[in-house]
């Protein structure tokens, strides 16, 4: 039997919705792929056609949340007066969306999201690209830089993922330490960017 693209998308959606609920109710570790398949009304084997692992499900949920956050916070990021604040807006909005997944993020951070991960999966690539595109656009706008070096972006990604890792394990009240860390990291990063762009400018005039 051929499964239409529409049915496929629908099944995928059901799996994600069910998984999100089960993770919230029983936790990531206690929820098995079998539980998810049963609750979604599909065979275990079918589930694997969509998501090979539980981590893949989390990754997909995270990717969606991240995309929503970027779409919803774009206006406020554009309105921010400084680059530091604009970047903070995007990161803070992402944290809000990722909040239900916070404690499960560790599973992703150690593997696919790690800055040294090789051969990223599609979902990671999408999550990463979309986030970095938003950030690059802000940098370009505020520093009027024509292109951001891949090194600078890689450095940002390391800081960002590091902040997420910190957040996943943050035991401070209401994870307030994470906000301080992000704020501080962004200030440090932007200061470095400014310094670098100043140092490069004279050369570009030659």
């Amino acid at each position, binding site marked *: 039997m051929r499964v239409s693209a529409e049915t496929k998308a629908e099944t995928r959606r059901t799996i994600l919705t069910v998984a999100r609920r089960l993770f919230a109710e029983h936790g990531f570790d206690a929820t098995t792929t079998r539980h998810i398949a049963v609750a979604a009304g599909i065979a275990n084997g079918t589930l694997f056609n969509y998501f090979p692992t539980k981590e893949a499900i989390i990754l997909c949920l995270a990717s969606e949340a991240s995309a929503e956050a970027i779409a919803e916070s774009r206006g406020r990021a554009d309105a921010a007066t400084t680059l530091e604040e604009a970047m903070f807006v995007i990161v803070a909005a992402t944290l809000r969306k990722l909040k239900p997944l916070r404690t499960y993020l560790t599973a992703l951070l150690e593997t696919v999201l790690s800055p040294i991960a090789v051969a990223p999966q599609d979902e990671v690539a999408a999550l990463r690209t979309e986030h970095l595109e938003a950030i690059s656009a802000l940098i370009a706008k505020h520093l009027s830089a024509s292109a951001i070096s891949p090194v600078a972006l890689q450095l940002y990604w390391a800081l960002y993922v590091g902040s997420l890792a910190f957040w996943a394990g943050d035991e401070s009240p*209401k994870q307030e330490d994470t906000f301080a860390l992000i*704020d501080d990291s962004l200030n440090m990063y932007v200061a470095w960017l400014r310094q670098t762009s100043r140092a490069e400018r004279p050369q570009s005039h030659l």
Partner: protein
Amino acid sequence: MPTVAQLIAALPDHEDIAASPSAALTKRLDAASFRRVPIGRLHRMGLLGTLQAKVAAAYLFYWVRGWFRNADEKERLRAEAHWRTAARVLDSMNYLRGAAMKVGQMLANFPDIVPTQFVETLEQLHFAAPPMHWSLMREMVSNELGDDPEHAFATFETRAFAAASLGQVHRATLKGGVPVVVKVQYPGIARTIGEDVRNLLLFMLPARLNADWENTREQFEDLRDRLEHETDYEREATTLQKARSLFREGDGIVVPRVYPERTTRRVLTMERLDGAHIDQFLATNPPQELRDEFARKIIRASYRLLYAGRVLYVDCHPGNFTFMEDGRLGILDFGCMVELDDKLWDLFRKMDRPMTTGRREDRIAVMKEWSWIGDDPTEDERRRLTDEFADWQWSPRYCGHVFDFGDEADFRRGTNLFMEMARKRFSRARPSTPMMARQHFGMRAMLYRLKAKVDVATIADEEVRNAGWDRRAYTQT
């Protein structure tokens, strides 16, 4: 108080930390380090922040150096080396922004002792543009109140109008239309305080020179407790509510109402009291009678809190008082209060006698108990200075006439005495002594600037009578 030149001379130097004798200790501290959360707000404050931090570090260094004056040269140098390191640690402390501001506020209270432009700079620090950008603020409020500021309040100004110690203050309006101010704390700062002070004490361990060490440690721990208390806005809210209940309409003294449903440990929402800051008030050239009226209210407020509330209002700096147009005095900040335990309360009870009679023997008797001074002839100098200082502190109360707080010579006498005591290392006293000195100087400085003439005894008698103490042995009535 130190002069600017002395402050600069006392600035921690910039020698490589590895060259200092405490390098090993630094390493050990690093190794045993708690999870450090980098909160380098000082950097974002740019020059201003650095200046504040340096002044604070230098001031503390200068202050503490006095304690080791009588030690032998080698020990003193060793102690100083440690203090330099400690000052550097202090300089890197996350919450120093708050502590520095406190020092700034303290210095700003002495207009004739530090040069004018210095005071002006420091004055501005009370209301300096704060470093938390709006998006971070929004996250903090949302994180604490469970709702974004634009939903939790009818209006919320995105620009802070004042910097609070360890946080910043925004104007807002409640949904019902009540104008309020919302104080929001920097994330993560509160918990680092205890850890930082613990580190500072570790640095000080080799400086344990004499019997005063225990006392020094106690005073530092007291400072830490106070700073920790200041970061708990729920605690401050309780204090505000308690203080508010002590005043009646006829007093003309008002403490802002707290809105508990919009208050957490990190966010404090209270009624907005619009009025003039002391500088703005004085700029209008107010007549003597009006200045005296506000001065009486300041004195009454502090006595009411003491005798009816059993607390000392320590934060007596100009930024915490507002001179309202209808003549009322608004008291704004209750983060730094000293609650008197039974022992201190009993001492205050005993202090009422010398404060009332003005007799030297009464003063000596109480001061000996307060500062543990013995009858030994070696303590003569200490006894003399302590007595003179107490006389300066209390004479407005027992002088028998209207006291002129604007008398510059008298004001200088007090600050000189205090500096001499600090220089001679006569700082051994109960842990709350520095706080009390701060309270008294803060108040005297405000009254001095108001050039107020007040009959203090009348106010004191009214307020003390309410404490219900048996004063028959030393009063006429």
